[in-house]
């Protein structure tokens, strides 16, 4: 039967139209409530706690004679958790063991520094999600941004200020180009953005590796594939003085967050992007151009991911390698999901993730735990947020009845 005669007769016909199940899964992930997000973080911390217990040597030793002296095991567990979470706090928020004020707040500044690229890239991904695009290519976009910015930074000598501005713009342009490619392929040829962006991540990676083998990018006197240092005129100034790593990029990221909010909530362009993301057929019927919206979205998302590349090359590491992106592009997906694609949420989620990462070294040194615990906690947060709708999509299960809206 033709699909256009869909009017079932009871209250079910008041529901939203049946949409593509992957698209629905994406929407549900994006729209999962703040409570779910909060509980996911709590649950991940608990699971992380269980892993900490198992990873702790004292616990394992005392567990061997658990039945003769169970008290030893419990106190070992308490010690393990106590030292793990306190060293995480000391490593990410405030170091209460430090002697100077600078030492006390240093972890916090480190957290914000690490959050900076995640805010940039997360904002871009969030805009993409809201416009209905599942952009997996932040990694490649970030890498291309870092390449453009770093090249401008080390290859030219320009006055301070202007040099930095050009390098930052270079980062945005590099990422935007890398976002434009999947955008136009989807708009003109219907190529699925997930596939194209994943592939472009590899293209970017090997392109950078090749570039670093060229004389123009190779650091003088080094055989390693690393670029020269970016000129000081192109580096982000440190905003709290030289003893802290926190740089101007963080403030730029916050400005971008405000810009992203204004774009999506207050501008006509953002209105179009939201409408296209939520219901492309209605948007088209209302005269919006879906292809143009797709391209614009990908260019903005790519540009922001490119700006994320400025954080390492202009802020912290200050030179280009093919590993400069780390796993930032993928962590940013988690950040965008966790922040429910809203700028404020993304900033908070990025700070959470920056904190988890900043706590890694302290966890290893002070609690003797593997840094990987942090990665596990991040991963379980993703699982808890993404899994219910994803599992429903995979097995075509209906959403729980209480989630269905019934019109009165």
């Amino acid at each position, binding site marked *: *039967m033709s699909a*256009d005669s869909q*009017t079932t*007769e009871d209250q079910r016909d*008041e529901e939203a139209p049946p949409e593509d199940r992957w698209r629905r899964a994406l929407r549900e992930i994006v729209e999962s409530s703040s409570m779910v997000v909060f509980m996911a973080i709590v649950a991940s911390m608990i699971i992380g706690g269980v892993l900490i217990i198992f990873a702790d040597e004292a616990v394992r030793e005392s567990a061997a004679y658990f039945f003769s002296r169970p008290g030893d095991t419990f106190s070992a567990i308490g010690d393990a958790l106590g030292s793990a979470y306190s060293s995480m706090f000391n490593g990410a928020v405030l170091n209460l063991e430090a002697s100077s004020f600078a030492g006390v707040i240093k972890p916090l500044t480190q957290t914000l520094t690490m959050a900076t690229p995640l805010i940039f890239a997360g904002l871009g991904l969030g805009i993409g999600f809201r416009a209905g695009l599942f952009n997996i290519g932040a990694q490649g976009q970030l890498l291309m941004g870092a390449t453009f910015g770093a090249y401008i930074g080390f290859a030219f000598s320009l006055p301070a200020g202007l040099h930095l501005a050009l390098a930052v713009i270079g980062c945005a342009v590099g990422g935007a180009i890398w976002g434009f490619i999947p955008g136009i392929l989807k708009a003109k040829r219907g190529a699925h953005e997930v596939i194209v962006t994943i592939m472009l991540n590899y293209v970017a990676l090997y392109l950078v590796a090749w570039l670093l083998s060229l004389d123009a990018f190779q650091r003088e006197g080094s055989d390693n594939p690393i670029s020269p240092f970016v000129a000081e005129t192109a580096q982000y100034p440190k905003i709290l003085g030289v003893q802290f790593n926190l740089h101007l990029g963080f403030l730029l990221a916050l400005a971008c967050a405000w810009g992203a909010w204004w774009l999506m909530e207050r501008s*006509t362009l953002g*209105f179009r992007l939201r409408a296209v993301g939520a219901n492309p057929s209605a948007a088209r019927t209302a005269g919006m*151009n879906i292809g143009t919206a797709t391209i614009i979205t990908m260019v903005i998302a790519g540009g922001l991911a490119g700006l994320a590349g400025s954080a390492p090359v202009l802020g912290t590491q200050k030179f280009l390698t093919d590993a400069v992106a780390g796993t930032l592009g993928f962590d940013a997906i988690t950040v965008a999901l966790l922040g429910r694609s809203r700028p404020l949420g993304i900033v908070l989620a990025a700070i959470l993730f920056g904190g988890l990462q900043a706590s890694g070294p302290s966890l290893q040194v002070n609690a003797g735990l593997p840094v990987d615990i942090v990665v596990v906690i991040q991963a379980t947060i993703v699982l808890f947020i993404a899994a219910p709708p994803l599992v429903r999509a995979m097995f075509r299960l209906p959403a729980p009845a209480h989630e269905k809206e019934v019109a009165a």
Partner: protein
Amino acid sequence: MKLELRGITKRFGDFTANDRIDLVVEPGTVHALLGENGAGKSTLMNVLFGLYDADEGEVLLDDEPVVFDGPGDAMTAGIGMVHQHFMLVHPFTVAENVMLGHEDVRGPAKLLDVEAARAKVREISERFNFNVDPDAVIEDLPVGAQQRVEIIKALSRDASLLILDEPTAVLTPQETDELLGIVKDLRDAGTAVVLITHKLREVQAVADTITVIRRGKVVGTAEPTASQEELASLMVGRAVTMRVDKEPAKPGETMLEVDGLTVVDDAGIVQLDGVSFEVKAGEILAIAGVQGNGQTELTEALLGVVPADAGSATLDGEVITGRTIKEVLHSGIGFVPEDRTEDGIVASMTISNNLILDVHDKAPYAKGGALQPKVIAEEARKHVEQFDVRATGIDQTAGSLSGGNQQKVVLARELSRPLKLLIASNPTRGLDVGSIEFVHKRIVAERDSGAAVIIVSAELDEVVALADRIAVMYHGRIVGIVPPDTDRDTLGLMMAGAHDEEEAA
């Protein structure tokens, strides 16, 4: 078999879809279940069929309480259901579809006994004059025949109670008459038939007993001799006029001229075949036809959603074919899409945002690329009041509104800018009687203010009520354009493809 429902209650969250419903269906009778969309008829039947569990109440067959865990149980007990959307496997033959789910096997190799199924189809088809070939492939059959296959499926499982859910929604008037004939034959053969519908004419034609449901409650029973007005008032809960009050049209200049418009789809099939007509300012041209005969393509080609492969459309002297949708909309066309949830509203956006979907970047809603939230909210409040949208506020999401209120949002948006032409596809599909009246009034008001109006509707009643002229479409062509007082039989024949010579108007 006698069916009795006692105090059936079914709730979805806070919403009570069925509220202590009692119903008795005697063998050998046609029991019509009449109610507006959303009244709870289908929920009730799904409870009976084992698809939903009732929260309270019980089902009795021949005075014995029964509990069904699923459709399988219900079928075994002798209840058959023909859904509004057919459950047929399109590449299979009639016989294969009929045996599906209870396949008989024969011989040591346990081969499917298709022969038995064919015999059964032939036997039932002859008994009730269905005229269905057991070897025909489903996708080659017209909709009416597919529906008869569904009935054969139910009867082949010895159903002594048959539930028909909105069976005539997709049929031509002639097919509808045939179906109603079949229903009478089934009744005379002793089958109990439950007919779920909101169409009063059908109820009057075949029902022995009528139960009217409103908002999940049985609000009364009526005799088949009751007038349409009486039945409609029972359904809606207040007096309703069935006619649209409108002055005779005062047609002005030609507003829209369509010349040889042709649309070929991606599969190479001609969906719209050289259609030509014109609409004058101040008149309503209604396009009648069974769904899927090119009406959708016509409206989409006018708006520019699908490109025209040949021909042109000219609005007030300006060619609109080959333009973008945005240009077409801004040249003065209002568009009410056929599928409002798919094309009309963005369910997750607020009412106020949905009201500016196609004018969001125009003054006063936007200034230099920035939205003007205050103006948007003010205008939204005005429109919500003018169009009587029942909502908790303008920030409620459009998806949480009822169908009628969603349609009012679409109309409020489309009618709130100056229009030269309004195109409305099935503007009242799925709406309750009250909303239908309102929508019709608005459309007529738009005509009287000097716009040309094109109404596409699968409901003949609506076409006749609104039209100043009627164009009938069949297989992508306009079979003829006739005056609105043309009798239904002639219209029905035209909808079935018979060419009509009287080219009036």
